């Protein structure tokens, strides 16, 4: 049985298990990752099977988690670190930005930092403050880091395999509100490259680019638009650093229109980078300015307002219409 229908959370769990079986140097570290299996159960059962020496419940200190993971990596281990929620990565931000991102370059390549930082991110789960954020741009701006996010179970599985195998530090953003969404995982497949975008829906009138939790919304938007006779292409970016600009460019040069969608605030977000670069690359192909749909320049609101804050089907379609109106 190589193809299974798995929820994203379980696909990551299986991927971690596979990596730990394959490579004794792979470790899991974080708060509550052991007996509890993480607050989202992503590491469920792993401590039971691999022991406390490989699935490590850490003190409640994120800088300490990432800092010691760096030390373990220097010793030859491959730590996969869990940050419990997006909003709690900031105490570790210094270690990530000044050490994890830069140590390989600082050592002129003589040491490697194969550390994966897993971060459940994004909103839509009705949580209290700090549990619904999308800070990916704050990592993608930093040279030395790579930043990815899967949108489905197969990617969740394979991108985790690839992230662990990579000798570079990778920030792996998990779309927490999609944890329970099921889709097929072929554990015998030969995966494509980690940092390439994927065409989810082919279309010819406009390109929608998204990643992580927003891919689903964009696919729905494409379907809704199709009913109105509009042919929308949906690209799952998968990687926010590097960005597969070639794929976006190719699509845009076909459709002539681009809308970028993410949950993070639009201001200084990934959409800005994509808009700027694609406009530069495809200036004469664009029929309309690149439009962005995303979070407002506001703290993530209380749960009862999150559906207003998050880009939803209507807001995406509104942007599609505005783009097509040019």
């Amino acid at each position: 049985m190589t193809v299974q229908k798995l929820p994203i959370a379980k696909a990551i769990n299986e991927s971690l298990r596979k990596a730990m079986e394959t490579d004794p140097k792979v470790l899991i570290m974080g708060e509550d990752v052991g007996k509890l299996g993480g607050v989202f159960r992503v590491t469920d059962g792993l401590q039971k099977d691999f022991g406390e020496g490989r699935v490590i419940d850490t003190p409640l200190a994120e800088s300490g988690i990432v800092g010691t993971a760096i030390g373990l990596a220097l010793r030859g281990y491959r730590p996969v670190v869990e940050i419990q929620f997006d909003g709690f990565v900031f105490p570790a931000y210094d270690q990530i930005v000044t050490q994890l991102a830069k140590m390989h370059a600082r050592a002129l390549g003589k040491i490697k930092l194969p550390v994966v930082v897993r971060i459940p991110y994004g909103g839509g789960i009705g949580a209290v403050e700090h549990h619904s954020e999308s800070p990916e741009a704050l990592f993608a701006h930093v040279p030395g880091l790579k930043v990815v996010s899967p949108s489905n179970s197969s990617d969740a599985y394979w991108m985790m395999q690839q992230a662990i195998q990579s000798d570079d530090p990778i920030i792996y953003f998990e779309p927490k509100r999609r944890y329970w969404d099921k889709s097929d995982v072929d554990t015998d497949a030969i995966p494509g490259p980690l940092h390439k975008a994927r065409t989810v829906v082919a279309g010819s009138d406009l390109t929608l680019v998204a990643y992580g939790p927003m891919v689903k919304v964009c696919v729905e938007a494409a379907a809704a638009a199709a009913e109105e006779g509009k042919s929308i292409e949906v690209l799952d970016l998968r990687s926010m650093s590097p960005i597969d600009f070639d794929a976006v460019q190719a699509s845009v040069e076909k459709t002539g229109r681009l809308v970028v969608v993410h949950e993070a605030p639009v201001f200084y977000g990934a959409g800005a980078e994509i808009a700027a670069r694609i406009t530069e690359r495809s200036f004469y192909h664009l029929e309309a300015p690149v439009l962005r749909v995303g979070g407002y320049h506001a703290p993530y609101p209380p749960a009862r307002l999150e559906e207003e804050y998050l880009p939803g089907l209507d807001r995406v379609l509104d942007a599609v219409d505005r783009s097509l109106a040019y």
Partner: protein
Amino acid sequence: MTVESTAARKPRRSSKRTGSSAGKAVADPQLVQLLTPEGQRVEHPDYDVDLTPEELRGLYRDMVLTRRFDAEATALQRQGELGLWASLLGQEAAQIGSGRALRDDDYVFPTYREHGVAWCRGVDPTNLLGMFRGVNHGGWDPNSNNFHLYTIVIGSQTLHATGYAMGVAKDGADSAVIAYFGDGASSQGDVAESFTFSAVYNAPVVFFCQNNQWAISEPTERQTRVPLYQRAQGYGFPGVRVDGNDVLACLAVTRSALERARRGEGPTLVEAFTYRMGAHTTSDDPTKYRADEEREAWEAKDPILRLKTYLENEGHADEAFFASLEEESETLGKRVREAVRAMPDPDRMAIFENIYADGHALVDEERAQFAAYQASFATESDGGFAAGEGK
């Protein structure tokens, strides 16, 4: 962690000053206790309280009502009225004892679990529920009751408390500040930095650590290998462990620490040794990581029961008191229930409010766009019903 290992760390010798051992758990000062689990009043060489029966009944009432409120909130979460609740069950004595030690002009920096302290400060309990319902991120004016907003990012508030206390000292006021945090929080760099700053500036702050034995699924052994109160001495101020289920001891120890702060002698770390009787929050399932027996052992140390026994044995409270308190509890429960159910959802435009005190051009622009976008639904033929579905 098992019951045994926790018990093994129970200290044996009492002292206001902290003990000496490093690297091993011998010669710990025993935890300060004034009321045994059996409801016996005991003496302590360094700490005492002299309370009238009325004051004792007051503490009892505080604990009972706090527990009632907490139970109601848990129930409201189950009914879907709240998104989440962080119960203080079992920690009533630590919170009421320390909360009642405070003066009005003192200032409190809580975590997300200090419902009992909020009660002592006079914060309307229903105000605490907004953030758990998801209508706001903190629904009260911190300066109305000198009770800061709940802080969710573990440990952050200890620095705010320290800075506030530095300000108090600058002002020449004799108020004190109290910072609550948990056993898990003790590992955060921010908490260590707050120890350093408060010691160096001799800030009038009390660090009140509720060691409830657990940080979600992690036992205190994951945070430290020696009793937490000992942390203080390496920063140059006293640490003391108090029976966190003994409201009298918590009151006495906190009062003493606050007085010390007022006298300009700087910070104190109080470790209230207690237990989280419930789940971490309503999202948590403690059966995954801890044994029932542990909880049962702690049930015998219940903070409310022991005070009740004492009140009864001493004849400080009669049936009528308990009956009327029962009634008061029910009234509180009802009031909370109704208030929560009546709590309106915030206006969607609230997303754009209070982000900046002085405004921000982009917020203005986005607010206007959002309003126009919303309005566009209203003018469509469907009469605007689509607006709510703009998900």
